[in-house]
């Protein structure tokens, strides 16, 4: 989207796995949006890739993906994600493996040199698992977490930190059910800084689709984080709850179970740490449809608050 009063020239570079990049140049009109269908680029057929976007005006780019097709469902699932600047450190609060979810870390390196990366998994029992990786120059790396060497990651709930010696892009996708074919997925970019105040704009509990919302908190620090969550409701006063997130731990707040007052409502939330320990926060949301448990689901990285 180009919110500017002037058209913007945009160059898109597709970083493929194990192959040379593909580049396209397009124009986005003033005060307008442009949809790019990647399948229209023949070189990208049956490819996994990252995308680098450069523009002559300040623009915002998002990417959505849809997949799966049945006689009654055009796309059984899909996800979308905004972008941000490259960084040397990325943090993801959410992540799960096992019999239901497949989780992938997706690292894009637009640099001219290889990125030497260290991936740190923070399990919900406080265990820490560190694995080194290399992302090729102007390439992308897909990490299937369940296939990491450490068997503790076969069936785990975790947060992740990615550190790199050069700035890279990083996202995390989750697909389900793990017994393929996948029906649905969500994807989020990581955050590049820890913070003590976070916000999420959406949350749903109950209703016709039996929405279920989770707040995922990751604490990579060496001391526990004392957390208060203020649930912002459409109607009614905020609800405040307190939690302690142990050191080096991923922590899950089951909002439906923990905040009964939010049943059958929409809400947002702000998450504040009271003892100065920086953390990462995401929110995931799942619902049932057509008699299928968790037919749909989304995830969003929380927004940092001042």
């Amino acid at each position, binding site marked *: 989207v180009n919110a500017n009063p002037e058209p913007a020239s945009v160059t898109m570079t597709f970083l493929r796995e194990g192959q040379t990049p593909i580049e396209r140049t397009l124009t986005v009109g003033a005060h307008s949006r442009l949809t790019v269908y990647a399948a229209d680029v023949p070189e990208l057929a049956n490819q996994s890739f990252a995308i*680098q976007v450069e523009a002559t005006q300040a623009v915002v780019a998002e990417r959505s993906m849809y997949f799966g097709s049945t006689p009654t469902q055009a796309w059984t699932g899909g996800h979308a*994600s*905004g972008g941000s600047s490259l960084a040397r450190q990325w943090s993801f609060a959410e992540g799960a493996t096992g019999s239901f979810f497949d989780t992938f870390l997706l690292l894009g390196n637009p640099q001219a040199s290889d990125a030497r990366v260290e991936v740190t998994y923070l399990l919900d029992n406080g265990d820490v698992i560190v694995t080194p990786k290399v992302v090729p120059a102007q390439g992308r790396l897909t990490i299937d977490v369940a296939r990491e060497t450490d068997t503790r990651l076969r069936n785990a709930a975790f947060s992740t930190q990615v550190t790199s010696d050069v700035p890279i892009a990083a996202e995390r996708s989750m697909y389900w059910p793990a017994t393929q074919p996948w029906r649905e997925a969500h994807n989020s970019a990581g955050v590049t800084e820890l913070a003590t105040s976070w916000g999420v704009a959406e949350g749903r509990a109950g209703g016709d689709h039996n929405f279920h919302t989770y707040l995922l908190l990751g604490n990579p620090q060496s001391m526990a984080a004392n957390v208060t969550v203020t649930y912002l409701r459409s109607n009614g006063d905020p609800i405040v709850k307190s939690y302690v997130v142990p050191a080096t731990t991923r922590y899950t707040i089951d909002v439906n179970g923990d905040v009964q007052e939010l049943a059958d409502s929409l809400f947002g939330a702000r998450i504040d740490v009271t003892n100065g320990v920086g953390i990462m926060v995401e929110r995931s949301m799942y619902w049932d449809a057509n008699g299928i448990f968790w037919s749909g689901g989304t995830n969003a990285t929380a927004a940092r608050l001042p």
Partner: protein
Amino acid sequence: MQKMRVGAIALAAAVSVAAWARPVVAQPSRFTLGPAALELIAASQREKAARTPAERKIDSQLLQEMARREGRTSAGRLAGADEITLAQDAAGRLIVDIMTTEAGAAALQADVARRGGEVLSAIASAASASRISPVSPGSPASPRSPASAGARASAAARSATLRASVSLDRLRDIAARPDVIFIAPGREPKTHRRATSAISATSATSAASATSNTATTGSATATAATGAPARLAHGGPTTDAFSPINTGQGSKTTEGDATHLAYLARLLYGVDGTGIKIGVLSDGVNGLSSSQSRGDLGPVTVLPGQGGHGGEGTALLEIIHDLAPGAQLYFATAFGGTAQYGQNIRDLRAAGCDIIIDDASYFEESAFQDGQSAHAWTTSNGGLVTQAVNHVTASGAIYFSSAGNDGNVAYGTGAVWEGDFLDGGADPGGTPGHFHDFGGGWLGNYVWDSDERLTLKWADPLGGSANDYDLFLFNADATAILSSSTNIQDGTQDPYESVSGRSDAYLVIWKSNDAAPRFLNLSAHRGRLNIVTNGQIHGHAAAAQAIAVAATPVAAPRDTGTPGPYPNPFTTANTVESFTSDGPRRMFFQADGTPYTPGNFSSTGGIVRQTPVITAADGVSVTGFSFITGPFYGTSAAVPHAAAIAALVMQSRPGITPAEVRAALIASAIDIEAPGVDVNSGAGIVMAPAAIAAAGGVPSAVIEVDSFTATDNPGDGDGFIVGGEGAALAVALTNLASITATNVTATLSTSSPYVKVMEPAMRSYGTIAAGAVVNGSGANGATPWAFTVASDAPCGLTIDFVLTVSFTSSGPITSRVIHLAVPIGTTIDINGTLGSPVSSAPSFTATTGIQTGRIAGISFGDSPTCARPRSYPGIDSTASLHFDAYTFPVCGAPAVSSCTPITLDGVNVVPMRAAAFAPAFNPASLEENYLGDSGTSAIRQNFSVDTHSNGPLVVTVYEAVANVGVGTSYHLRLTGMCGSCVRNGVPTATARNMTVQADASGMAAASIDNGSSDPDGDPLTITQSPAGPYPVGVTTVLLTVTDPKGATSQATAAVTVLPIVITPPAPTAIYLLGEGATGGFFDEDVLIANPNPLALVVTLTFFKEDGTTVTETRTIDRESHLRIAVDDVQGLEATAASVQVSAAGGYPLIVERSMFWDEGRHYAGHTAPAVSAPAMPGSSRKVRKASSIRMSSS
């Protein structure tokens, strides 16, 4: 071969005992009964035959006294020669025991009262003995007992005993009652204490004194307060080392606590007698409250009305309390007659006592019968006490009895002869009867000395003797019968005769012609006989289940022999006291009189019972309230040691049976005297740790203080600790057990408000092997503790430090608490000469002169202390006496009192004394300003006084007798003095909590000092522990501030280090969402949360692909959530559009977008958060967006 000659009987005495054991009395080499003596015997027999039926029921000693008072020459005694000792009451009435029937007892009480008598007690003899209610004198007499005259035919009738005071002239009338069985003198028992001899008084006191010096903290050194208990090596599985520190309880402690290793047993096994009830029978509990006030005893339950008289019971209780301080103690007197004695034994058991002990026995107690049936009509009640012992042991109690101090053959102190009657021939004068031959033709047994009863017993059942024996005591030249006992035995009486003791006399046994030969027991008890055998222990001490205890000295023996080992433990080298009674005991009859060997009542009949059973300590320290000071000798002292050890054994193994306790004591005893079980020591000396181990106990390591040193650090450098100074305490620990202790730590604390122990207060001593010592001086050991004494601490303060030691060993005990008494203050030593005092201003000034009078001395030699000050006692001499007076300034006027210990010593100070006064000394009036004095004559005199801030303190040294002291050298020492009156001020540590941010290293430095200060303005050394930098998180930090005198103060605070510096994001006003679609497939929501504390107007601008825009404005409440269904916004019903969101005022929002499909079913969806600012182009190829996707499962 008979030695009797016609007209004269020669009685020669054999001399076979060592001269040291005897009084200086020349024994005649020849003893002849001339015609006059034989006539006296004949006369006694005529008198005996002439007794009326009532007189036959009166003891012959009482009959003799009647005759004397009635002016008749008593048959069988020469006028004025007898020494009958009969107890009387204040009204001159005799104390008698009246044996009667239980049925007739009530009426008899009334009759006694009517006859002017007074019933002191009335007790049935039944197994469940009970007291009999008296009938008031005015009440009608009960019907006469049908059992009366025909009592003997009614063997089933139960007996009872009345102790009464009755006029002698009423006895015949009372005896005439058919319900009266017999009237005997009311005797009291003997307790088994031996008064201190001259030899033992000196040596034992010396030993105790030396111990006292080492057992307390050593304060009198010039450089430091130290405690260095003697380190003693000895053998045994759990006895590798020993320290007398902390033995016993209260002001005086039996040395037996150390020699029996009871102290060590308490530590090894964590026992102190808790849960065990011990009953004591002795004379009385005089001084009980005084003993309790000094901590030498805790609570004692005295059975109502049975407190007795005398204080030996108090001494026994103190010994038990020293060894088993957790035991619950009971007392009842053994006095008041055998019936009362037996009743009290039963009552103690009824009160719940698990262990019962006594140290008293009655002369009339049977030597040959195992008790006494309730239906036995005896004339002496000789089996009542044994029967009571049988009763309580059968019900589960353990009974200990002192073996007695009546001597033994082995040490030449024997006082008993036992053997078969040997016919020494008939009276040539024709009196029907025969003399007993003691062997070799000796018809008399010489009594070296005796001030007690002399008794004759023979092998007949109680209440069933038909063999009439008499006992005569002749003077040395056989010209007079000094005393005789001629009771009639015609089938229903006891086999018992008794006369008053006399020295330098001969005992002659006379048997009637009709009497059968029997096995005899002739005893001088605590006296000495010339012809002796073993077998002295008798009565209830020899009861089947009783444990008779012999005595062995802890230090100097009372008379002669091997000194005891104190402060070391007993070994096989120790021996019994020379006076302790020996065994064994030959027993002929069961409790009901049934013979063990029917038809055989000689030295080949009966059963032989080993006794004594074990041996324990005597010659020990007690408070002395019960009697004069000096070691407590006798088997009386031994029995409480054994009983207390039994209590420790019982506690160590709950549920243990009395038989198992007895077996453990015996099996673990140290074998002394003859190898194996012997007649003098039994199995040997009982030892507490070994006994508990034999009972199955598992020992733990015993960590004890080996030594300690306290000194100023640095203070003023004089070695003395005073207020305002820093100090160091070094403690060496040792392991007294034979097993290794690991992980040994010690934590020092004190409740003194004047002392602060510097943190950290825990020290690690690592592993301490058995017998090893780990020092506390820092090198290869633990580091000393630092402490600071408050500026206002009293000068004579003694700090009670508590050392809590934790450790691991193979036993169950993992910790113990040790108290260390550390006195502070300076010491002033004055070496003076009376009449020429020395001054040393400003510390003190001196004068000399003449005072009027001598302060009265102190009994008990118990000098006053600050805790027990002495009121001015007056003067016991008005003589003019030389004195030296020393005046000591007293610092300031602290609100707390100050105690000053004072010692006067020197080889020639015996006739000199010290006294203290405040604020001045007036030689013309010793009462004026009197504080206290030594009050005794000794080469070392100690006392302490409290000035109560009424200084200055004046201490005088003066001669106790006029003109004997001038020119005499003396040493005067005052400890706990203030030293300089200007004291150092202790600094104050002030800390504050700090919160700091970690730096790049992840750590941060911080100071918690918040203005610590020193009242003197001294420069302070300030340290923090840990010193920092501190890691992320919260660290508790100890702040220590120290001034140049080592005075230290501490405070704590928390340092909080925050992990990462977080830069808050700049406020964002605009949010963008690239994706967005509505229509028939997608349903789109824009979701906005307002975290701000105010409502906001938000504007949404939608950018469609055709370049047109749609604007929507909404209001969102404070701290709330808003959902905008984009499909419902006019102009956006079916389109693709991006959206820009902004809040009025630029307030931050939280913005997301969700899309669901397909319309109406919403089986899938996705969400994205808004981008807070548009990506801007860079000057070079700058990346603004990167994303990746996985397109397939490949």
